[in-house]
């Protein structure tokens, strides 16, 4: 009885995993193929021959080493800023009572409802006035203000999560004379690892794959990021399929590793929530 349930569970997982993985497998096999083999019908799955040179050629066609470093710097600064300031804001909006709180929160939230296409030029002009074009400031500084703009969703996400943590914990701490900061840092944050990890992953991937931001704000090729490097394989006249696929595979490898590493904190989250009750 129980084992039949297990088998069903694994069957369901496999059934879900196959369509999920299929396009991804295609990405990898294309990365190892010559252009002509990629488009044979019906599709072929095994590269013949294995075109390993796609990887070396693609990764040397652009200074990907430098782009990698540039991207890491931007991503790390953004993740730190977002996690810290968004958690602080979410704590205020979920667990501290102050007049006008919900109105302020609603106003903040409204910023994600305006398409970025129209705020883009005013924002650009603002950074120009600040003399910060062609620096990473426009790409990183907003994240230190609770991820201004789209980052407000992280505040929302954390707030939703904080709301599910029992308020008795806060009250007990306050009775012991704790300050709100202490409650935030010592009570709420340690219980919110799953949500923090989610915000970390989202922010990291968002910055990692962001194309328009670096493209607009950076002018020197030495400052370009991975996504700009990727885009150069697809131009108006020419698409270098093998290179594009190989470089894409290489670009996502670090974030796959990051995700694989971080997702274990979901499990840790379980044990903690288990203990607290």
């Amino acid at each position, binding site marked *: 009885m129980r084992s039949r349930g297990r088998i069903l569970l694994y069957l369901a997982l496999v059934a879900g995993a196959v369509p999920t993985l299929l396009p991804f497998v295609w990405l990898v096999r294309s990365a190892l193929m010559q*252009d*002509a083999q*990629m*488009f*044979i*019908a019906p599709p072929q799955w095994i590269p013949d021959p294995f075109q390993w040179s796609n990887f070396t050629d693609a990764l040397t*066609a*652009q200074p990907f080493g*430098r782009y990698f*470093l*540039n991207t890491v*710097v931007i991503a790390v600064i953004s993740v730190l800023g977002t996690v810290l300031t968004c958690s602080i804001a979410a704590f205020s909006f979920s667990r501290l009572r102050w007049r006008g709180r919900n109105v302020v929160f609603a106003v903040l939230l409204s910023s994600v409802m305006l398409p970025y296409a129209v705020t*883009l*030029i005013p924002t*650009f*002009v603002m950074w*120009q006035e600040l*003399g*910060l*074009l*062609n*620096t*990473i*400031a426009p790409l990183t500084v907003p994240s230190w203000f609770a991820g201004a703009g789209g980052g407000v969703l992280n505040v929302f996400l954390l707030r939703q999560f904080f709301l599910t943590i029992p308020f008795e914990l806060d009250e007990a701490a306050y009775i012991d004379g704790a300050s709100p900061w202490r409650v935030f840092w010592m009570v709420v944050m340690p219980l919110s690892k799953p949500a923090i990890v989610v915000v970390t992953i989202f922010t990291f991937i968002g910055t990692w794959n962001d*194309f*328009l931001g670096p*493209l*607009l704000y950076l*002018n*020197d*090729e*030495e*400052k370009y990021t991975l996504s*700009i490097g990727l*885009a*150069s*394989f*697809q*131009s*108006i*006249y*020419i*698409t*270098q*399929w093998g*290179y594009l696929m190989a470089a894409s595979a290489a670009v996502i490898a670090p974030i796959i590793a990051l995700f694989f590493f971080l997702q274990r904190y979901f499990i840790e989250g379980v044990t903690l929530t288990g203990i607290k009750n």
Partner: protein
Amino acid sequence: MRRRELLALAGLVPLAAACGNDDDGAAENIQLQFMYWGSTFEQKAVEKMLKAFEQSNAGTKVKPLFTPDEYDVKLNTLVASGNVPDVGYVPMAMSYRLAEQGKLVNLFSYLDKYPQLASYLPDAYLWYGKDQLHGVATANEIELLWYSKAAVAEAGISAPPAQASSAWTWDQLVENAYKLTVDQSGKHPDESGFNAGQVRQFGISSSITYAAAWYGFLRSNGADFADPTGTKCLLDTPEAIEVFQNLQDLIYKHRVAPGPGQLAATGDDVPGTNILLKTKRVAMIVDGHWSLLDMNESKVDYGIGVLPKYDEPFTTSQVAGASAVFAGSKHVEEAIELFAFHIDPRYVDLYEQGLWMPQERKYYEDQAAIDSWTKNDSHPSEFRTAVVDYARDHGVPDLRGRLKNLSAINSDVLTPALQEIETGKRPAAAVLKEVAPKVTSRMQGWHHTQEL
């Protein structure tokens, strides 16, 4: 110094350190910025060209502003904030407007001083008013009939002619396309039992939605997009309808052409003309001259023919974006020199490698000059007649550089209508008669043109 401040701020992070050396001796150096798009391949060629320019103009430095995608977004932002480069590519949809807004230098008054500027093909020039010249198309590009030599040999037909004078008629094209179309069991569309769902090799592919692909046909059949005033759309004339009906028939009546989504004539579509010919998924494809680079890179056994004709043979030429000098440049003269330099085959590899065709007239008329860019491994023997002569004598300039407001016309009404033809929902006549008045209501005339 504003620039130093910038660098100081940027210097907070190590990755910006490398740009510090730009400032060395900034006092006597002239600094230009060149904005462009392109593949990694073009990127290398352009950077090489910029280096050559710096070498032949001591004291001048050119900073490349490479923008592989979202070019119009970036350029709009730069325009709005007054940060435009000195020289660069400008998408056709934007170039006329920027010129009218005074954002591009009127090159007309410099034609005397820089004779090279006055030596381009007449169709290359982009005028926005009398004696108002805002640039030239970056390269001359034309549409051709590419084919797989192997597929043609297997079908036992004669190859598409490489000379305009002997171009196939439309009927000849269809007839040969039948012979080149084979399903999985080796049957042709005119044989019984032909399985249209299992076609191994299509005879021909020619885009219905990409204007450069059909404009030559339109002109060849005595039709045009608009009347001489440029305020009335003529796509509902019998001649125009015939052209589009013929294109639709290739797919649905003759079944010799792939349906939408399988065309290669626009760069975004998978997988590209070179691959389609190499794998013989399609035997003949109407596509631009620029495919030559891809063909050679992926070692396709290709041949080049001229397009089929109705009456007089025509092909679309000048299928490229604009290049221009931006107003507000501190060094206009140097910028104009760079402008002439960046489309000079002596300094840019892209001509020899097959991606670009020159704009200077002599490269189509003077034997030594023709040889200088075509006598090499990248250019097949038929290139001379099928491309050089064809472009010179039978090119009609692409609508994008000629008709006002075309970008909006295309995206708002024309492309959706052409997609209806392409999907075979309704015959061409019904669609075109409905859309022509809508196009007319958005038309604002032809752009100005004049002799030098």
